[in-house]
């Protein structure tokens, strides 16, 4: 980043100054580190301290879930009946009874629309808020959040359970999540790669080794503070040790420490247990958690898969997430955003005995609730056959901008890529006022 500046507008000196603060030593060259280039990037209007992003890879059907069309012809309507919800006049699929009971905690967006009908492209779009381009890999929401939010020294800022499908992109590995790689199991202690001690290494042993390391690692002592890489290695080395040996970190990941009563609503499936883990992590101070529930690519046997497997899991896990956050007093400070990469075709295909639905980015749903978000409403509307938005429709970029805004991150704030190109957090989106408190 030694040479570029933005084409117009800000002064790179500000950017350098900010960078120097971040690196902890003035007058350093900035290497390839990305720096926030805009002043005023943190938006005091944001209400949330933390966020949970729930990705639904595969692309869930909108008609069979949160945007039912009971009056449409049967080849569109599908097999599911609808039920009333806690919010007057709003109906969900009959297989979402628990979410129907807590939809005063979130808003359903209907008629969200885009045009990328392939899984990888759609996921990149929805999981970053930026339409993908081969020129630039955009970062996941959590990675952007990790550039702005801080927490206790012995905790990671950003955790993915079990993994995030979107990486840190142009922000670089520094902003990658700590991935648990596995989901916790109900009532069992949870061993997290890198955090939990194992392989015969005890707390005492690692402590002794670390002392030895600190005494031996003196080669670069004289130049360490003047070198970004060496300084970073030292700093991250200390922090890693604090995390590994921290009781707070170990306990935050251990869902079995939660009381029986609190654990009860969380079913014994990986997604529900991940939701429980997310609450514990946020409670401990983790600022961003990504969860994932996959399997939505129901080209065949759409209804059986939804009814028997996917919807009960989503319904149970997500509703317990909202209720649990509320019980712990975290709901008003934690934004929850849930979305797949697209909706599914209104018309049921006939390739399998039962029928399925195919990729359909033109019309989809998204859910957002918790801190800073106006809750208990439906925004937007799809047309009579859920084939497209009835009116203008929501752009994924605008939803992403709203999500960032709720966290106090200005979606128009800019990063500089290593090649000097100014890139806003969300390239082409503005927060949706109706979605904000």
């Amino acid at each position: 980043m030694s040479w570029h500046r933005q084409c117009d507008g800000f002064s790179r000196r500000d950017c350098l100054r900010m960078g120097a603060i971040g690196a902890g030593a003035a007058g350093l060259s900035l290497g390839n580190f990305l720096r926030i280039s805009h002043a005023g990037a943190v938006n005091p209007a944001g209400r949330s301290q933390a966020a949970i992003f729930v990705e639904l890879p595969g692309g869930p059907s909108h008609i069979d879930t949160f945007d039912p069309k009971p009056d449409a012809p049967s080849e569109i309507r599908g097999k599911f009946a609808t039920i009333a919800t806690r919010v007057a006049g709003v109906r969900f699929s009959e297989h979402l009874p628990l979410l129907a009971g807590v939809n005063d905690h979130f808003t359903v967006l209907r008629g969200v629309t885009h045009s990328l009908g392939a899984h990888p492209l759609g996921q990149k779009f929805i999981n970053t808020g930026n339409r993908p381009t081969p020129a630039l890999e955009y970062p996941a929401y959590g990675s952007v959040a990790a550039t702005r939010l801080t927490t206790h020294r012995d905790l990671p800022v950003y955790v993915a359970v079990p993994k995030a499908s979107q990486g840190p992109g142009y922000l670089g590995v520094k902003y990658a999540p700590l991935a648990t790689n596995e989901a916790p199991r109900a009532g069992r202690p949870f061993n997290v790669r890198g955090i939990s001690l194992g392989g015969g290494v005890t707390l005492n042993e690692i402590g002794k080794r670390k002392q030895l390391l600190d005494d031996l690692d003196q080669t670069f002592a004289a130049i360490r503070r003047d070198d970004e890489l060496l300084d970073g290695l030292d700093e991250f080395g200390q922090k890693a040790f604090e995390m590994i040996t921290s009781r707070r970190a170990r306990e935050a990941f251990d869902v079995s420490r939660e009381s029986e009563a609190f654990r009860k609503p969380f079913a014994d499936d990986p997604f529900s247990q991940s939701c429980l883990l997310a609450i514990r992590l946020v409670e401990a101070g983790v600022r961003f958690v990504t969860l994932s529930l996959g399997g939505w690519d129901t080209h065949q046997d759409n209804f059986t898969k939804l009814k028997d497997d996917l919807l009960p899991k989503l319904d149970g896990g997500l509703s317990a997430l909202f209720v649990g956050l509320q019980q712990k007093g975290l709901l008003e400070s934690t934004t929850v955003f849930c979305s797949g990469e697209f909706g599914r075709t209104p018309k049921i295909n006939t390739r399998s005995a039962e029928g399925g639905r195919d990729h359909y980015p033109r019309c989809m749903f998204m859910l957002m609730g918790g801190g800073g978000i106006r809750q208990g409403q439906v925004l937007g509307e799809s047309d009579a056959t859920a084939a497209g938005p009835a009116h203008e429709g929501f752009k994924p970029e605008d939803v992403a901008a709203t999500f960032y805004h709720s966290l106090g991150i200005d979606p128009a704030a800019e990063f500089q890529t290593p090649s000097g190109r100014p890139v806003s957090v969300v390239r082409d989106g503005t927060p949706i006022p109706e979605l904000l408190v």
Partner: protein
Amino acid sequence: MMKQNDSLQGSWTVWIVIPVVVGCTGILLAIMGELGLVIPDERASANGAVAFRSAPEPVGLNPDAETVPPVNVRFATETDEVPDFQRHVSPLLGRLGCNGRACHGSFQGQGGFRLSLFGYDFAADIAAMMEVGSGRIDLADVGESLILAKPSDADFHEGGQRFTEDSWQFAVLKKWIAGGAQAVAVPAKLDRLEVEPAELQFRSTDDQAELRVIAHWADGSREDVTPLCRFQSNDPSIATVTPTGHVQAGERGDSHLVVFYDNAVQPVPVSRAWNEAAMARGAGSGRNRESFGPIDGFVQAKLDRLGLVRSDLVDDATFLRRVCLDIAGTLPSAADVREFMADHSPDKRSRKIDELLETPAYSALWATFFCDLTGNNTQELRDVAYAPTETLSTMWYEWIRKRIADNMPYDQMVEGIVLASGRFSDQSYLEYCTEMSQMVRSGDCDPFVQGDSMPLYWMRRELQDPDERANSFAHSFLGLQIQCAQCHKHPFDQWTNDDFNSFARFFSGVQVMRPQNAPKADREDVQKIAGDLGLDFKKGGGNAQKLIREALRDGKTVPVRQLIVTPPNINQQKLEPAEKQALRKSRKRTYDEGRLPDGSMVPFRPTDDVRQPLMEWLRKKDNPWFARAIVNRIWAKYFGVGIVDPPDNLSLANPPSNAELLDWLASTFVERGYDLKWLHREIANSRTYQTAWQPNETNGNDRRNFSRSLPRRLPAEVVVDTMAQASASDRDNDRFFVNLEDRALSVPGTATNRAAGRNNSAGFALEIFGRSTRTTTCDCDRSMETSLIQTVYLQNDRDVHFMLGRNDGWVGELRSAEKSGSEPDSAAGKQIADLENRIRRLERGRAQSLEKGQEVQARKFAERIAGFEKQLAGMRPDPAVATVSAEERLQQIDSLILEAYLRALGRQPTPEERDRCRQHMQEYESVAEGLAGVLWALINSSEFIVNH
């Protein structure tokens, strides 16, 4: 806000020129009397004045009769002159910020008014201003034109007041409108920008300067365009520049100021010496000035100008570790270190360099590098054969690796990629499919690797669009980031959107043909293959893929996509509806010509493979980028920073830190027949490369002039491999240069999760250490940064614990020997080692089960472990027998500490380090357990993870 310009009016009249000859370079020193600066000549330059080096040509700085004074002078008073859109109005709009990204340059426009971003689309800009009913230009009542009224705040302007009604800016716009708002009939060609001073050397933070810019047009006219230029500083900590060209000195160091006008970009070097005393001593100082080759002369010249003294020569041990890692991505084994240290011949360094260049590890490291550059992304090859794509990535990797090992000239290797054809010339489609099917099935890529062509570069799924191919090509082979121009004038270089589109034409003639669309000649073959498989393409979709995958597994020939070269087809997506219609009528299908990035036009004949002239152009001696890009990138791998940095941005606005050095390297590389090993040798043998990392009193903060070696984190693959190597058994520790099996360096593509099983599931480590994902056209796709997740991994990941203690590793073998009281290769020792090995594996399985929450499974593991432990206990000899004296034990510990240091850090421990390690190891009853801690600490030290 532009009022400050007025204070500069007439500044051109006060230039004073005092040429002073310094040495043989003919340096002109100039000052600006207006600023009250002392006249610097050779003597004066020591007393804190500003030294300027002027352009050698032309000599005159005085505004002569031919140079038109600047607009802010000409339009300050009443004049009959009508400004020109290209020369005055468009740059003025840029200067005022009108066509910036935040204003009317936004693709959404502002207030319904959109200008081309950064200008240069003259027609569109004039059309936008002339739009009927917009009132932006009112030819009848010039004063009412909104482009005058709004920015002068006579009418509300969201962008605020940009100039006042009595300003020259207002006058320029007004006169242009009054003159009929004439369009640009034929754009004038700008020859060059002349900037005075051509170089700035500051002495103190108080120093200032004014830039003056003269445009030399191809028609011979000259104009002072200072008030119409855009200025930027590439490092504002060293110098800042105001919008009017006023420069203020800052910190020590060197960088460039950049001047933009029309489509020209002119850099101006700016510097403030790091150490005046050292600079004054210059060549006389004598310290560390030895030269091992031409590189050192170029570097020294720059150091002298900045008052930098090069660091000392690196010691042998550090050199050995550095050069092994840089050339071959491999640590020297303990034996290598001993041998090198014992060798006292003067040419041992260069012999080591020659030796390393012949190792398989060299070819693996640099094949990985070229796979990054060319984008060997496994996922993007998934359509080629509907089949496991790892084999395709292996073909790509091995094709390159063979050529690296053979030291094929770089241009020939690139030719194999750029001019790749789908199949051998005498091969039928059926034969092609049969061969590909066999290779994909068996994983034996030899026929592909032996072939001249590497078509996979063109077959990546997300690179089918000519625009994306143009971006990718420019990145891979030219080291350029041209994608800005895909949508608008490039802000940091010469290309306009038209230039980009014209260049993209070169990439519209390569098609990746699906079997069902195969050309006529192949159709019979396609039908035969499909018929044999019972494949109906029309049914399409997932079923066909499944069928093909199964058929492939069953040993049948399946249809494969092939590369077809056609004439450059017109990209209809780029056309407006009217243009499309016109095209349909004309029945024109192909482009007539294309424009290369250097601006030259290449006529296309309808039958051409237009990649041919592209390749010829790459090879031209005066190609500004092809050779420079590769020598600069390879240089950057050795130094952690390019001569141009970032190395994939050879843009005009990002000049090299040492142009003479880059020019020499590039031109000599070409003269030497694009000989890559020559380049490696020349770099590694230089004094510049063999410089210590320890800074001296002058160069602690210099990061761009190669005055010292910069510590660099090891690349992801090398991190994984060196950990395995440092902890390997004595037997294996030596083999890493030769044996590529299980090395992360030999993972060909990007499906690194599939690399699980190889090298302890290297995929996870490769990801967190930032192995290139090869998804974007940016060298930054590979990350060399450090992160928390990395240090967590190094300290406590199960893979690391396992690797350090694995039974067939160094510590593991020692443990076995210790427990059996015998040498590991005795019969009893072997049996014990075998049991130990099983226990380690079970322990790892147990850890994984625990992570997965599979408690039952974990308990089963634990039970089996307990069983084996019992068995082991019975086999262990009586401890009394194995007792060694305290002295023997200390000797053993010391020799292990020495060995650990040689393996991990390539050097002996200092006495203090040895004592501290001793202290640690003596806390353990088992020497092996103590050693595991020492090895852990060394692997976690900065010295290990950094090449220095």
